[in-house]
């Protein structure tokens, strides 16, 4: 029996219309719309596309939670074995939408999710670790080729074929590294000598452990006089009000929160706690000040060693959180800090 696939498209490829209809609310249709036909054809005897989901790029961009919730609702109770999104080519909002919905579908239904984007699509950086994103063309001219790549890999997954490394399959590496036996049987010693001689001669060589360029932020110069400074506290230690109002995740966080400390001398246990899943929470739950040191800072404030403490502290969870998400959250927090005239931040981790 054929397996079942569902495809996500934006308003343009879903044949609703162009930019003026980018606010189109999510909908699901039985059968094939636009590229779904090509996908269905390429899946051949292995699978059929049963439904097409269409959502405007602006709708997904500006009302993401609502859009995702609605689409997950459509899928509830539907039988499907695999989920495709795109191809999104170089369209940034579309790529991001494909990523958001694919990630949510994977998490909720546990099915494989596959997309395709051009390497300049920002969706690649945002979502390549979450899903299979095939290296796609710059425009819809590459539609047939990109759909074929998605379909071929989908078929491999559905039929249980051995999946090859990212480079060989043609998708962006997901940062997942596994050991393999080299078919050539070349021992490490020979590989070392080969690399060594090439490096000595200044020839190109390929490391077996590519190290991503580090993105080190220079440490800011020391502040000589803190007595006039407004100091904020930020943490990746997951301290939140006990009800965790912003639903910050306990690992692999994508959300951050800021919470008012006005009138408090310290963070009280029972009022605040940690939701961080990466360490034993006992000490932090008993005394949240070990991570957000309001008690010590209030003392400094009283002594006049620091000017004042910013009323909110900023918090998220560091464990499993990707560098990309961390950088995005930090940039958002920095906007807020600048707007409220904060001079310096104490950043605590765990």
């Amino acid at each position, binding site marked *: 029996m054929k397996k079942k696939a569902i495809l996500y498209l934006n308003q343009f490829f879903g044949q609703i219309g162009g930019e003026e209809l980018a606010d189109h609310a999510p909908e699901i249709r039985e059968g094939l719309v636009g590229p779904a036909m090509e996908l269905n054809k390429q899946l051949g005897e292995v699978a059929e596309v049963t439904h097409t989901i269409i959502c405007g790029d602006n709708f997904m961009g500006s009302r993401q939670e609502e859009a995702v919730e609605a689409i997950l609702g459509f899928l509830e109770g539907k039988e499907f074995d695999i989920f495709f999104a795109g191809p999104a080519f170089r369209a940034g909002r579309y790529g991001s939408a494909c990523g958001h919905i694919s990630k949510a579908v994977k998490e909720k239904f546990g099915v494989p999710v596959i997309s395709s984007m051009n390497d300049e699509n920002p969706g690649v950086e945002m979502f390549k670790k979450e899903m299979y994103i095939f290296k796609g063309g710059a425009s819809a001219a590459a539609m047939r080729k990109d759909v074929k790549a998605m379909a071929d890999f989908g078929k491999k997954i559905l039929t249980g074929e051995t999946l090859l490394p990212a480079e060989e399959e043609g998708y962006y590496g997901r940062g997942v590294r596994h050991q393999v*036996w080299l078919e050539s049987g070349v021992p490490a010693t020979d590989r070392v*000598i080969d690399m060594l001689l090439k490096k000595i001669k200044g020839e190109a060589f390929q490391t077996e452990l590519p190290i991503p360029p580090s993105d080190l932020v220079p440490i800011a110069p020391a502040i000589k006089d803190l007595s006039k400074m407004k100091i904020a506290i930020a943490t990746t230690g997951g301290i939140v009000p006990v009800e965790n109002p912003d639903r910050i995740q306990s690992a692999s966080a994508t959300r951050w929160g800021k919470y008012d400390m006005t009138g408090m001398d310290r963070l009280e246990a029972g009022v605040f706690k940690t939701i961080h899943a990466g360490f034993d929470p006992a000490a932090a739950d008993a005394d949240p000040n070990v991570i957000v040191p309001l008690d010590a800072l209030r003392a400094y404030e009283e002594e006049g060693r620091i000017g004042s403490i910013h009323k909110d502290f900023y918090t998220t969870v560091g464990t499993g959180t990707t560098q990309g998400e961390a950088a995005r959250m930090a940039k958002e927090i920095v906007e807020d800090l600048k707007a409220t005239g904060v001079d310096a931040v104490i950043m605590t981790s765990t």
Partner: protein
Amino acid sequence: MKLEIGNFYVKDIVFGEKTSYANGILTINKEEAIAVVKEDDHITEADILIAKPGDKTRIVPVKEAIEPRHRVGGGAVFPGVTGELSAAGNGKTFALKNCSVLVVGKHWGGFQDGLIDMSGEGAKYTLFSQLQNICLVADTDEDFEKREQQKKNHALRWAGMRLAEYIGSCVAELQPEEVETYELGPITERPQEVQALPNVVLVLQPQSQMEEAGYNDLVYGWDCNHMVPTYMHPNEVLDGAMISGSFMPCSSKWSTYDFQNYPMIKRLYREHGKTVNFLGVIMSNLNVALEQKERAALFVAQIAKSLGAEAAVVAEEGYGNPDADFIACIVALEDAGVKTIGLTNECTGRDGASQPLVTLDEKANAIVSCGNVSQLIELPPMETVIGELEALARDGLSGGWSDDEILGSSVRKDGSIIMENNAMFCGDRVAGWSTKTMVEY
């Protein structure tokens, strides 16, 4: 220094009246061999079993592997360890090839011990499945560590070395079938055409993380934790100056057999005089305190520069904390203008998604990788177990567990197992044998 290793190729091992070697057949007088093992009163029980390639045999907990050898003209095979100190690496040593003495706990395993399958899927991980193995299966009265996860395994490891020397001595009066010659003259006196080749050093980082004596690799019997990096002749390593310790998760281990046959040294010898001028070995270490790591890196870079090295190969015995030493050493060498290649394994987690080394640096741009210590491995039962299978689950082997809410115990009732590569005996073959690599998915 000139080292001649006279090889005797063992094709089969049998028990018999006289410990002897003839026409590829190694005969062992079991009683006499066990008497040698029991020279140490701490050995309470001992037996010797043979495991051959293709046998449906699983060996666990394996603590050490040693190539049987004999030092021609007398002297300890492992100077400063099994006998008095003397210089290694110059002269003649006989070696029984294609075989090893495996030191196996009769009952008790520990964090540092590993597993060997002599056939099937599990056999591809470790070199020792390809050798004729003389398994010394023994127990000791070292009760202080019986239930400790970290074991020094002193009595057992030393018994293994004695046994390897005893067996090796049976070829003392024979003519070897083949002689390998390893000769490297003083750096300043090498022929000009050799000196004109790119100068390369090999930096070895043997395991030395334990502050307490008894766990670390030894150099001429000296704890590698208590040294600063020093220059050594590669022949010394090949000729018993280094012995393995009892600490590291096993797939990352360099056994004593690895030191005796160190593939990266032999490979550099092959290039010497052709493509490179192999200057020698800088013996470093892997200590835990940051200052010790920095000091070691500083010494390595200085020695390499003073020797005139323009390129280096750095190999580490371990992962996790030692990655900091590994990367620091590579960075120090690159900063000193020495083009450096790293040789290691990785710890990317069972899902493969973790950062491969604890520390990363863009300067480490040329690394050869031999595997993932945390890869899950599931293997069917074997007909025979040498040692005690339950040790894998019970005794805290780095790749075994007694219970897991999803996976259950590492050892199942039917004798099948599920473990991390961590507990494969020398499973990543990081001394250079490895035909594994790591790829991104």
